């Protein structure tokens, strides 16, 4: 990395690198490490602090990992099941996650062990025990990973929010290639222009940024506003899986469902208002260890019925509580801090507004090398479609990060690069600073609140065309009349304003993708299309910006994805089957 200031502008910090990685979660960490191993100069930029930002440090305390000798078929039938999983690539990912497990062990990540042996535990929806638990939680894991990555020679810049990709033709969308990025320091407001031969986007999932209006707690990092996905969309990259990445199972006061991977196999139970374990009605054999999708449906249904679904921790044995306090210390501190300890009140659950509570594994369409549809631009982890691997798991994020980093390293070895276009950079700098200069603009907090209320009110749990169209119209109006007119008092608030602007664009693309998929599947539930349609919808929905409009189309998933052939069945979605049994047909 070279730093120089020239005559472009007094306060523009110009950096130059071979491979630029944006985002310091586990995907970004492994992308940077792998690209560095290829001999490239690597710079990792994080809007927060590499090792503390994003989901990885605050996740469920579990790294699902293959180990040599595992039954691959059991893996496919567990995490790899379903017609929209790329099972062929899934199998290729398994040995890589074990390699990463060992790399992290060498870096000093503390896994739960018996002697030297790394232990594994069960998790919901898995056919066998494959979850490696962190002995001192995600914070320790990510700080050890950070140290390992830094030791490899990766340079890091913290607290810089990247806002725009720069292209060799100076256009967005581009017809050529990505040549770097522009952004700003979230404390000083200094502008950063970063010239890179290859850029790897690892900015994680997206959700409504900051807590819901009226919610008491956020818990998860609030800044998951989809910045990277919005930038890739504007640059003309194809996006996919937007309508399918929703993880909509949340405690009432939280923005994610922290700890499920470790709490469920420890004896946590989902109960109704009478304290009855209602999974009995849905999957009496596996109960809470059922698939994540079925758990969503059961909770959604109970919520609809007014049965107050809650997670009850009181039957977790004492020895397991001690392990949980080590594996997910921050999650447990949150629950206890709210009065939901192991002996306290069950934790009330919601099934949050579809598509707005958290979208994991939806974003840039990538291939197995992490290449997007634009030259010089790579993506990995949960801001990509993760090439149809199970999106929310740390191990698939590290694996896709590795693949994208390796491909970026190969790319820079062959590519001569291209210069930044100064007119595009100037325009991007103007855009960054506009909310600071706007004197008659709108304040952040009320606009943020109105957008949140709109989503809760208009989108709803079970989707239909009418509500989606209405929500889309309202989002477009709000984007133009309010979000685009936000002002910021300082650099800190500028980061929040930019987050909301980026989110509004990804939200529009998501709502359009919802409208395009005319079936129901997993946590994507449409009452006007209640059929899980494996005859017509084993497909990806693609969104791409072409000039000033969003184009949407669908493509069949390649047959090469499937080891278990997909049967062309058409079945009523479970939510409607349950509804039919209690209320008559939908």
């Amino acid at each position, binding site marked *: 990395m070279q730093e120089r200031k020239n005559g472009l502008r007094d306060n523009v910090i110009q950096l130059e690198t071979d491979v630029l990685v944006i985002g310091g979660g586990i995907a970004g960490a492994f992308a940077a490490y792998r690209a560095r191993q290829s001999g490239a100069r690597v710079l990792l930029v994080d809007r927060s602090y590499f090792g503390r930002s994003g989901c990885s440090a605050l996740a469920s305390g579990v790294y699902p990992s293959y180990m040599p000798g595992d039954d691959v078929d059991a893996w496919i039938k567990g995490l790899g099941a379903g017609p929209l999983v790329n099972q062929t690539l899934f199998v290729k990912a398994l040995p890589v996650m074990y390699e990463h497990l060992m790399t992290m062990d060498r870096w000093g990540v503390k896994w739960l062990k018996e002697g030297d042996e790394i232990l594994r535990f069960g998790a919901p929806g898995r056919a066998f025990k494959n979850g490696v638990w962190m002995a001192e939680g995600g*914070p320790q894991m990510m700080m050890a990973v950070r140290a390992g990555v830094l030791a490899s020679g990766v340079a890091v810049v913290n607290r810089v929010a990247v806002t725009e990709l720069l292209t060799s033709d100076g256009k967005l969308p581009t017809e050529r290639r990505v040549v770097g990025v522009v952004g700003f320091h979230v404390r000083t407001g200094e502008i950063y222009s970063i010239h890179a031969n290859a850029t790897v986007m690892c900015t994680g999932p997206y959700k409504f940024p900051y807590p819901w209006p009226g919610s*008491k*707690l*956020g818990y998860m990092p609030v800044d998951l506003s989809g910045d990277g996905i919005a930038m890739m969309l504007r640059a003309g990259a194809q996006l996919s899986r937007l309508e399918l990445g929703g993880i909509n199972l949340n405690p009432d006061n939280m923005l994610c469902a922290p700890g499920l991977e470790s709490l469920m196999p420890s004896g946590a139970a989902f109960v109704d208002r009478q304290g009855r374990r209602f999974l009995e009605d849905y999957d009496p054999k596996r109960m809470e260890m059922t698939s994540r999708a079925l758990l969503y449906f059961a909770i959604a249904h109970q919520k609809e019925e007014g049965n107050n679904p809650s997670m009850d921790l009181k039957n977790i044995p004492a020895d397991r509580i001690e392990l949980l306090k080590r594996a997910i210390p921050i999650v447990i*501190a949150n629950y206890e801090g*709210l009065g939901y300890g192991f002996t306290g009140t069950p934790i009330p659950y919601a099934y949050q507004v579809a598509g707005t509570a958290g979208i994991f594994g939806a974003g840039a369409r990538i291939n197995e090398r992490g290449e997007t549809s634009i030259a010089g631009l790579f993506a990995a982890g949960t801001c990509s479609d993760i090439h149809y691997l199970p999106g929310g798991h740390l191990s698939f994020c590290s694996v896709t990060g590795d693949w994208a980093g390796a491909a970026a390293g190969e790319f820079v070895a062959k590519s001569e690069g291209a210069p930044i276009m100064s007119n595009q950079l100037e325009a991007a700098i103007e855009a960054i600073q506009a909310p600071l200069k706007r004197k008659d603009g709108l304040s952040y907090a009320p606009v943020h609140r109105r957008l949140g209320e709109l989503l809760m009110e208009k989108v709803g749990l079970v989707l239909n065309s009418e509500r989606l169209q209405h929500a889309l119209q309202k989002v477009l109006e709000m984007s133009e009349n309010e979000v685009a007119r936000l002002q910021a008092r300082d650099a800190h608030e500028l*980061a929040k304003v930019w987050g909301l602007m980026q989110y509004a664009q990804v939200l529009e693309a998501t709502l359009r993708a919802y409208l395009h998929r005319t079936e129901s599947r997993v946590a994507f539930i449409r009452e006007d299309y209640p059929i899980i349609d494996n005859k017509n919808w084993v497909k990806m929905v693609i969104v791409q910006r072409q000039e000033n409009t969003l184009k949407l189309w669908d493509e069949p998933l390649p047959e090469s994805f499937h080891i278990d052939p997909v049967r062309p069945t058409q079945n009523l979605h479970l939510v409607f089957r349950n509804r039919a049994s209690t209320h008559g047909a939908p």
Partner: protein
Amino acid sequence: MARLEINNAACTGCGVCVETCPTDVLRLDAEQKAIAAYGEDCQGCFVCQWDCAYEAIRVKLR
């Protein structure tokens, strides 16, 4: 709403919490003590409490 309780007597002004807060809530004041300069953005993630070697900072959720 999460809020931070900072014990000024225990705070050494080392700045670790300012460095690592995921949502950039904290700053050092003129006396080199941690303050929640952007307290409204605290999400109760406990990273500051976790990282403080002097037990000077506590996250309160209620």
